């Protein structure tokens, strides 16, 4: 049952977006997300929306996958909307008891919802169109300048990639142990909160032991394969900025200029 959970949400493809250097994608996504806070008009959001829509189109990831990310935070979006609609003071459009809908409220509500939606879809595009493993490579490369201030860039990236590798293994393990304990009459589903928490001990103890065993064996195997941290390490897929990345940079600058122009005009 647990096996069906898919991890990460990478959508395989060979689009120009997929082929961009992960560093470009991470930086571009961060700039895009920041730009959404800089926008203060619907016209601006229109530009941001068109820009994102074009990127999504190029990436070839079906819209369905993009909206999946929205679905999970649907409640938060609704809540944000209602909170803004009812709590913003201003010209009352409509009232019912203590609830007051104001023009400003409606405006801010819609504004916030659009911003949230673009934030989510924008960051989803990064994870959908980048292999998790390249993502960790990208993060490592971007953190590297901070290494001299004591940020363990290589170690963080290695941890992330090992986690990616072993989460499915540990899920399988959990499934196995759960079934084994159920075969011994364990009941993980009924009882009050305390009983349920207690019933998890026979699951968690073996799981932790497994995790430690894996860690010890993996560390040994890595050492046997000459692992000695990030120093002097080369990569099978070295990262290199290409033509696509230069195009992306130019496009991003144009996008930012349009936004700035809009803000200046309005």
């Amino acid at each position: 049952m647990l096996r069906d959970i898919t991890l990460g949400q990478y959508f395989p493809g060979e689009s120009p977006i997929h082929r961009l250097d992960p560093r470009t994608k991470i930086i571009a996504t961060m700039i895009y997300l920041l730009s959404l806070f800089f926008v203060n008009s619907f016209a601006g959001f229109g530009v941001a929306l068109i820009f994102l829509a074009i990127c999504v189109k190029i990436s070839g990831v079906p819209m369905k996958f993009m909206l999946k990310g929205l679905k999970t935070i649907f409640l938060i979006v609704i809540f944000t909307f209602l909170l803004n609609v009812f709590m913003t003071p201003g010209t009352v459009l409509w009232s019912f008891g203590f609830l007051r809908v104001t023009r400003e409220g409606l405006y801010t509500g819609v504004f916030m919802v659009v911003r949230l939606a673009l934030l989510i879809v924008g960051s989803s595009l990064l994870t959908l169109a980048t292999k998790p493993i390249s993502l960790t490579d990208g993060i490592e490369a971007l953190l590297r300048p901070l290494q001299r201030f004591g940020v363990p860039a290589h170690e963080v990236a290695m941890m992330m990639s090992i986690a990616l590798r072993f989460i499915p293994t540990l899920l399988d393990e959990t499934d196995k142990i759960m079934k084994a304990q159920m075969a011994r009459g364990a009941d993980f589903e009924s009882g009050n909160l305390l009983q349920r928490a207690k019933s998890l001990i026979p699951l968690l103890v073996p799981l932790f032991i497994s995790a430690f065993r894996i860690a010890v064996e993996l560390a040994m195997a890595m050492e046997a394969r000459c692992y000695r941290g990030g120093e002097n390490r080369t990569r099978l897929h070295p990262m290199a900025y290409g033509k696509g990345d230069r195009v992306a940079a130019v496009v991003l600058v144009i996008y930012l200029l349009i936004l700035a122009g809009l803000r200046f005009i309005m």
Partner: protein
Amino acid sequence: MSYTNKEDIIQIDHLLFQYQQEETKETVTAIKDVSFTLKRGSFTAIIGRNGSGKSTLAKNINALLLPTEGTVYVNGYDTRDKDHLWEIRQSAGMVFQNPDNQLVSSIVEDDVAFGPENLGIEPQEIRRRVDEALKKVNMYQHRKRSPHHLSGGQKQRVAIAGVVAMRPECIILDEPTAMLDPKGRAQVMDIIHQLHQEGITIVLITHFMDEAAQADRIIIMDDGDVVLDGTPREVFLHGGKIRQLYLDVPFAVEMAEHLRDAGIDVPEDVIETPELVQYLCGDCVGTAIAAERCAATDTCPDGATDAAATPVVEVKHLRHVFSPGLPFESVALDDVNFTIEKNSFTALIGHTGSGKSTLIQHLNGLLKPTDGSVWIDGENIGDGKVKLRDIRRKVGLVFQYPEYQLFEETVLKDVCYGPLNLGFSQEEAEARAKRAIELVGLDFEEVKDRSPFALSGGQKRRVAIAGVIAMEPEVLILDEPTAGLDPKSHRDILLMIETIKKEGGVTILLVSHNMGDVARLADRVLVMDGGRLWMNGTPHQVFSRAEELSEIGLGLPPATEFMYRLKLAGAPVDTSALTVQDALNAVLEWKRGEGPC
């Protein structure tokens, strides 16, 4: 002594290895005064029971462990020499037992690249080596996949590729096939032979004597010492001594010994079944027709089923579909029908992925049928009236590697977990735990207050099995209970199962890949293939269909295979033998001139 002979890739001089046990602070000597050398390009098998020091020795060769006394030289470098640590590990690569826990990356090719990346090799060269290594182990077409979608045998081949990509001169494999099914094991052995032919020195640690027999040198270790060292032919001359060390000998060696005892002259250095067949059958072409006639009139009484027997498990039109309606929908079981009689011993065989695990999980309600029904003791367990707790009490299921589910502080508490879940009082649970612990062959007073984690591998497994037996089920299902054990623990567990059946009056369903065990123990065999019940019959009936079995990826018991080979070579023998004793009798009948009928 220093490194002397350039012909030797590995030179071990008076190696002593000691470590301190964490709990008791005692000093344990894992290896005492071992000396030997390995020639470049040789293929050496190291065998020995658990705790004999094999793995410790392997880790000393790779500089994962350093000698307490004595010296280990790899390619001329002392393993204590920190300046050459990476050269040592690069030239003596290591493959471990668990295929899952040695792969680092979530993409096959990135994992193979891990070693070369650590060595700081140029990207283009890494690319070349990765492709080359993956092609060598026949995994190139899977290079973009994630290891967790691969079978055990495939993962192990990726692990080997990861070492090959570092261009080692020597590869040490620490029980690389222990956790694999027969197919995966055969594939890995093929790769090992191929690498050996390309000039790589192989050190293979194994529990399987047929694998060891394929090497050109065998070193047998016991209690931290080298006991026997020589070519397989030399080593297996000491059959008696090997058995004293609780190890096995290959089937042909055992058979040849029996034949010699019975007065048939067989040379002493026969170690492989084909050799033995050739020797016995030098002049028997043309006499096979008689045997053919016999086989046709062979009236085995096995086929008849006892009408009075009561079924305890009935499976009717069982079908199970995983993820129905989704793109990755898969039919795991399709129209499976069978019954298991009370107090019978049934074996369930089939290659990995044939639906065995899915099937057994239906028998105690862990999985629900998509279609069809499962009846235990005349009750349909899926009709909603039957409580799952009652089913779990009646049908005990021991999963593969059950020791991984232990969790309590003491053995007694762990074994009591099942009975307590079933609602028994503390006293009753402890009484049951005591009976169960004794039934699995452990001393109750000695182990009850110990931590289950402090026990040996074989003992842990017994405790885990006791945890299911304490529920006193009517049907006990064991999923590969001997997987990964050394020959002694393997035999002990099988004896234990026989005891449980006899003393506990339990119906047994044993899932196994070991056809020899199946032939010896089971009175019925269920064969699964592609989610369907391919055959349901007695061991005689099932193993008489050798060709068809091999088509669905299953082998024969060694004794049956031996008789088949004899018959193929032209000997007028009947091939129904299941055990060494059967085979011996059949050969004696033939050799003494009596007809096989």
